[in-house]
């Protein structure tokens, strides 16, 4: 393996030795934007968990920042739509952009997303009991000025505070305004609150940076690496089981309305975005602290998954009901399963992450 690694590093080494000459003032620990490899060799095959943490926090800051910005724009668009009584196309487009910005964050079910209950309040799904519809009915029973007030929305049902509620307003016979304005403003608040809970002083990023024996969450930087690795894997489980498996059901009995965002037909775009978010964490976060060719191989398998998703060629809602397209959805699901196996075989051990059985796993 040692020899293999050295060989595979051949091409990368060119970059490593040449890059600092291109940019001699680069700070230590920075990495090549294309290859994701550090300009300075990681050294003796040991994982530098401090470097992983530094780079991963940059990835997270960018991803949480993207959701904050998209949700802020969503609020502005909703306000403009409702004020000018214009058509809802711009609002639909911005809902799609916001959902796609959320998709990578769906993998990070720890820290602020848990503390703030954002998994449900941003994206209440699955919704087997129509809590979104019921929450919206309660909101729509309020006087108009209260519907537009994000404080009223946030005090109500979590199911009526997020993306699926806005989607139901925009893709059903319900009146869009003024409730859309209140929900979009609530989403913008959540986007800002999540970002701050991570990156404001004393936020979760500072807890991760302060990893050590007295830290109540991370006793060392390696524990944060393990959390991130688990999150990447969890995101893939979400794609495989929830986003694909749930609507697939069985051949005789598919469940198209169990697809995420089936009304707006965004299901496939959300899956693309979640896969891309995972790829970004692997490429830019774990970066050169995963040996080659393992890292490039995993990224290649993610590309294969994207390609399989493209062959589906229609919304998941339709695809699971169509014998030919359904077969392609199943093929994609198998690819995600394969991706998870490869991740567990190559990337986990590579990062020194122990995911075995331990009483310390908690319950």
């Amino acid at each position: 393996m040692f020899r293999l690694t050295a060989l595979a590093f051949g091409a990368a080494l060119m970059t490593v030795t040449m890059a600092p000459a291109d940019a001699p003032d680069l700070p230590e620990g920075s990495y090549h934007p294309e290859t994701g490899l550090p300009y300075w060799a990681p050294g003796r095959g040991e994982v530098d968990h401090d470097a992983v943490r530094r780079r991963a926090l940059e990835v997270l800051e960018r991803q949480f920042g993207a959701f904050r910005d998209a949700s802020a724009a969503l609020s502005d668009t909703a306000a403009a739509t409702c004020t000018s009584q214009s058509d809802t196309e711009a609002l639909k487009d911005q809902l799609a952009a916001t959902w796609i910005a959320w998709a990578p964050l769906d993998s990070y079910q720890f820290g602020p997303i848990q503390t703030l209950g954002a998994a449900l309040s941003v994206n209440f799904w699955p919704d087997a009991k129509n809590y979104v519809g019921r929450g919206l009915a309660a909101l729509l029973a309020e006087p108009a000025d209260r519907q537009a007030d994000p404080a009223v929305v946030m005090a109500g049902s979590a199911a009526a505070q997020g993306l699926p509620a806005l989607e139901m307003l925009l893709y059903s016979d319900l009146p869009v305004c003024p409730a859309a304005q209140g929900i979009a403003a609530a989403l913008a608040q959540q986007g800002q609150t999540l970002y701050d809970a991570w990156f404001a002083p004393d936020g979760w990023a500072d807890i991760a940076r302060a990893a050590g024996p007295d830290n109540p969450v991370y006793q060392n930087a390696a524990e944060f690496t393990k959390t991130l690795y688990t999150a990447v894997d969890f995101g893939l489980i979400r794609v495989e089981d929830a986003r694909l498996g749930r609507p697939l059901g069985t051949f005789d009995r598919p469940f198209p309305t169990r697809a995420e965002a089936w009304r707006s037909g965004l299901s496939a775009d959300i899956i693309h975005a979640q896969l891309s978010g995972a790829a970004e964490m692997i490429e830019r976060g774990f970066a050169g602290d995963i040996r080659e060719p393992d890292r490039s191989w995993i990224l290649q398998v993610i590309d294969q998954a994207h390609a399989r998703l493209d062959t589906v060629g229609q919304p998941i809602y339709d695809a699971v009901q169509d014998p030919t397209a359904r077969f392609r959805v199943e093929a994609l699901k198998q690819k995600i399963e394969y991706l998870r196996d490869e991740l567990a075989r190559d990337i986990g051990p590579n990062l020194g992450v122990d995911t075995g059985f331990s009483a310390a796993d908690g319950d």
Partner: protein
Amino acid sequence: MHRRTFLATAAAALAAPAWADAGAPCYLTAAAKPDLSTWLVGLSDRGTVLFQIPVPDRGHAAAAHPFRAEAVAFARRPGRFAVVLECPTGAEIARLHAPEGRHFYGHGAFTADGRYLLTTENDFDAPDGRIGVWDAQAAYARVDDLPSGGIGPHEILHLPGGGFAVANGGIQTHPDFGRAKLNLPTMAPNLTYLDEGGAIVDQVHPPSDMRLNSIRHLDVDADGRIAIALQWQGAPQQIVPLAAQHVRGAPLRYLPHPATATLRQFGGSVAIARDGSVIAVTGPKGDHVLYFDGRDGTPRGADRLAEASGVAQHGRGLALTIQGGMALRENGSTAQFPVAGDWSWDNHLVRIV
């Protein structure tokens, strides 16, 4: 119900194997081997493995039948199966499957007469906490389904005076989200008392500043006083008690300890000595155990024990599972000894009556 059909019936004299046939094991625990195979293990109080039975997935706690040599091993949440095993042989007597839309939390308890098994369950799309009722005399057929009194019922315990205590942890989870906690802004744990027929007879709620302290694991002494292990879900930098006591009719009593921070906000398991003299709360994440006086709740020292996980009554003291073995806490001192077999223990140690 039929809700009353399983009111304590006369204990039938049954020709099933009794616990002595299983080598009179003192304790049960779920465990794994280095190859990640998963097992239910019977241990003597000196760390001898009396039996080891493979189970299909990671186990959590187990419920021992009060007099037959049967144990019910529960899958760890969000597991959907439980296996009833005859302990001398390892023969599978029955298998419990959680109904559609449910999963087990990994704990259960028998009625005093051994007739019914009660299991804590998640009705995850509702979401609601439920108690499943299974008839041990009818091949563990599911016979009833009762409210637990809160979200996230975790440990359920039979009480010496009859009835049960249920730790409603307050945390909403859904299998689609793995083990992620979904409702922290609104979580509301409680301790609920059920009568022998499973009906809710009393509930105690934490004060508002302890709302984020999940009530999760329980034990009870011979006088019916309950000891509680807590898991803090609030700001991780905030140090709050991870142990509490409760006596019916009184408010919850939280127990500070100078070594609380070593548990890393996670009380894994709890036991109170049968005579009520000592309480232990284990910290598998923090590699420590805290001890308290069982009567007045004052701190009584702590031990650094790697992967301190399960703890159970042992005479006037307590037995613990730790990395590579067991420990006994008696008369204010702790003795450790190894257990052969390279086991990793799950969080709980279940004492056989």
